[in-house]
């Protein structure tokens, strides 16, 4: 912790001014970050007349969650008026296995690459890491063919596979950089005691890992939940994730554009990731502190 006030010198007028400047800066940026959320939130609670007559930044006259219920249960997506509900559960069914498997594989791979430095481990790491930079549009066509070949085209398991594959470079990056700072002596001692690979992983590495697991899970959860491109390209109809359904909902109008419903739907879609960030944000920073970003 770096702290000016803790430094010797006491509270001079200059320092008070600096504090004032500091808070001003922090609050200005807080406004920049919070503005879109306020716009979306307040619009979702207005009724249509209020939206039409007021300005974008005005607050709703009364708190009203009608649009939320409508977006969840009744809004039309194409010809079926089911709301976002079924698609939301599709996303859950897709995200949980994809996050779990990619995190586990990332942990095992990171462990192998750092604690059993075989020949070429760094090259392999670099090659895996390169996967972070592949633009996903590039893989759409060959992926479609591969999914068809594997018989999982247009299914949730197919999407799970896609997300595991393109999440791995990140999970490996996180775990590898975390494990690299764990002293090798721990592993050596355990090996001498006769513990095998999985035993060491289970008994020594995993108990040390919660901070980086938090970071990885948050990252993967956010990326996979928010994906639009893969969902839109590889699924149709009832199997689509909620982000794609959101886009369909926003573009489905029957006469009048219901901005409040659109905004409520956007917030419902974002709710799980928002909750994760707000609730786990503290652990996130702590996990990063624990060494994950020390390249």
């Amino acid at each position, binding site marked *: 912790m770096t702290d000016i006030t803790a430094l010797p010198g006491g509270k001079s007028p200059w320092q008070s001014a600096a504090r004032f400047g500091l808070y001003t800066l922090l609050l200005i940026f807080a406004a920049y970050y919070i503005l879109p959320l306020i716009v979306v939130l307040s619009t979702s609670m207005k009724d249509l007349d209020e939206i039409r007559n007021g300005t974008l930044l005005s607050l709703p006259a009364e708190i009203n969650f009608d649009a939320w219920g409508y977006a969840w249960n009744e809004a039309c997506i194409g*010809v079926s008026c089911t709301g976002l509900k079924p698609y939301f559960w599709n996303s859950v069914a897709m995200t949980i296995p994809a996050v779990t498997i990619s995190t586990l594989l990332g942990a095992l791979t990171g462990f192998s690459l750092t604690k059993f430095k075989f020949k070429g481990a760094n090259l392999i790491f670099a090659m895996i890491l390169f996967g972070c930079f592949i633009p996903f549009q590039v893989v759409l066509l060959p992926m479609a063919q591969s999914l068809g070949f594997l018989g999982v085209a247009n299914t949730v398991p197919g999407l799970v596979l896609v997300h595991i594959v393109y999440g791995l470079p990140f999970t490996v990056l996180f775990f590898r950089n975390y494990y690299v700072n764990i002293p090798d002596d721990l592993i050596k001692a355990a090996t001498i005691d006769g513990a095998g690979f999985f035993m060491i992983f289970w008994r020594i590495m995993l108990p040390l890992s919660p901070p980086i697991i938090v970071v990885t899970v948050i990252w993967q959860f956010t990326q996979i939940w928010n994906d639009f491109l893969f969902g839109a390209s590889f699924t149709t109809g009832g199997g689509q994730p909620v982000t794609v359904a959101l886009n369909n909902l926003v573009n489905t109008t029957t006469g009048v554009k219901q901005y409040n419903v659109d905004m409520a739907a956007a917030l419902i879609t974002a709710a799980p990731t928002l909750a994760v960030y707000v609730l786990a944000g503290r652990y996130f920073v702590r996990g990063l502190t624990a060494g994950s970003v020390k390249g």
Partner: protein
Amino acid sequence: MKKLTHKLAVSTALVSSLILGAVNVQAQPTAEVLHYWTSGGEAKAVKALKEDFEANGGKWLDAPVAGGGGDAQAAVLRSRVLSGNPPAAVQIKGPNIQEWAEAGALGDLTKLGEQEGWDNVLPPLLQDIVKHDGKYVAVPVNIHRVDWIWVNPEALAKVDGEPPRTWDEFNALADKLQAAGIIPLAHGGQPWQDATVFETVALGLGGAEFFNKAFVELDADTLKSDTMIKVFDQMRKMRGYVDADFPGRDWNLATSMVMRGEAAMQIMGDWAKGEFIAAGKEPGKDFLCIPTPSKGGYILNSDSFAMFNVTNDDDKAGQELLARLILGEKFQETFNLYKGSIPARMGVSAEKFDECAVKSMVDLQASSEAGSLVGSVAHEIAASGAVRGAVLDVVTEHFNSNMTSEAAVARLAESIELAE
């Protein structure tokens, strides 16, 4: 989590019904329908098709892909075809049908077509679109007219304006409206909207022969001709008649500007009428439909469903049922009443259609006989995706910058050449 267990239960039930169903010989017509009709009148229209399909014992699997007039749909279609699992029926149109057919991806409906006598009820122009090598591979749903001006009569009355018959009259009227503080032209900000205006101007100033020579034959001299320069000059004028906030605006929001009287006119195909009707407006009273100035021209756009290669009997039965319903008189009528278009097949009674649709029917017949009927470029009837895209690029760049008309025609010729 309850939902998840519920999902599991449903899928188990599905699997067991599949096994049991195998004993059942009768195929249940099933069709997965990939479409991008999710807005206003379109959504109602496709719902009518679904209900009709289900009333005839079919199982409809809805696969809507919203946004961008099919931009998003194109990716999912390609991915489904490459994965060897195409949807049964897909909303595609124009030269795309031919390209998919050449790639061997489409099924054959010729037998059904013979039974139903499609050759006798479909206008020749549409037959050309939905047939490949003499075989029916798609069915047309409707005929849209692109070259319409949608007018708010109150706004026009405020300046004592008359519906324009030439582009000079259009400009004079627009100037008057502008002076009165009314936005003359409601316009949205996507390249295809710019191109929609562009093609009506091109037809109006150049005529059908010029239009086809430029955009179908892609003749370089015509593309660089003085007439084309004049077309771009008029586009520059049109830009001045549009309000400043148009970029990024959807077409239906532009339509509602006309409804509210904020703007006086919009140049858009007759799907815009669906928006007026959905908002409870009456043609001839709350809004007027006037063809854009041209000598009896007509720019045609037609939606259709292509039937992809499917292997199982349920899907095949589904395709046939869908095709039969789509070209049936009853569906042609209900659907097109919602959608704002006119029936694709001949012999549907005009009785229930409004004055705009009736005018469209009459003008279609007349222009077809006079040879002034052209396919839309902006809506992918006259030109393939690549050529259409090249035209859109140049038109939208010119419309959104200070490019001169001379530079625009040079770029147009170059861009089209590169696209081929």
